[in-house]
């Protein structure tokens, strides 16, 4: 867990936390940032797994165009 919770949270939110949130203890800001970081990581992993799995269900003819769009 990063020591500067506020900076960690700002990075995770891509935005400065509101004054009330910024006033929380640093360890709590770090926990919040860590939870968001983990949620984004899980989501990214699920998206990657689902994209790969989805290709098996897609007709061969469409797999190329789909891959091209998804990147």
């Amino acid at each position: 867990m990063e020591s500067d919770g506020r900076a960690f949270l700002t990075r995770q939110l891509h935005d400065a936390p509101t004054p009330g949130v910024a006033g929380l203890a640093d360890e709590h800001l770090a926990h919040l940032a860590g939870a968001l970081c983990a949620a984004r990581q899980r989501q990214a992993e699920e998206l990657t797994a689902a994209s790969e799995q989805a290709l098996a269900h897609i007709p061969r003819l469409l797999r190329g165009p789909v891959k091209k769009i998804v990147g």
Partner: protein
Amino acid sequence: MVDSTISSEELERNAEIRRLARLLGVVPDELDYLTPLAPPELRALRGQVTASLFDARGVLARMAAASRILPAGLVVTLAERVFGPMLAARIAGLLEVDRAVDIAARLPVPFLADVATELDPRRVADILGAIPPATIAAVAAELIAREEWIAMGTFYAYLPPASVRAAIGVADAPALLQIALVLEDKERLSVVLEIAGTDTLSRIAVAAEAAGLSAQLRALEVYLTPEQRAQLPA
């Protein structure tokens, strides 16, 4: 069920913390340190967390774009069998309204209810407005059966009048009470009650009395019209 000893502001705070916990995939107790924050601060934080998760560096938008070249039936299969409710909820708001409504019409109600608990209604307001009231009612009935009061309380603000009427039609007074207490946009309460019909508030008041929640209901008075306030017991 709501604890009869807590205040209206605490109810709102608890609902916000539970919404945030669901988004982050943690148990609400882990976020206990947020309880000193006022509900508007928590709402703002949830908005920021939602933006961060629903952006996903453009991946979700590319997924939605790719789905456009697939037949709707195949998208339905993929949503149910591969993507699941959480990812489907993230992608839904990026689809064209007609397409999303067509796909929703083909999905089973329990799956739609799962998706509903993961949605950010602000991002799918147009879609919610275009889904037939009968489908909204079926999903509402499923959410009520699951006692998903917070999901229901989040949605009412974004439904058109016909859908509000349909959703209210499947909720009994105790359910409406639970939903009213955690309604996200309390300013909308008087409008929802207006749509619900004249005796709804009286029935909710009876349910509140029976559940020992009259004080919490009374705290919502400020959001009611003078005529509605008059329906509450003195």
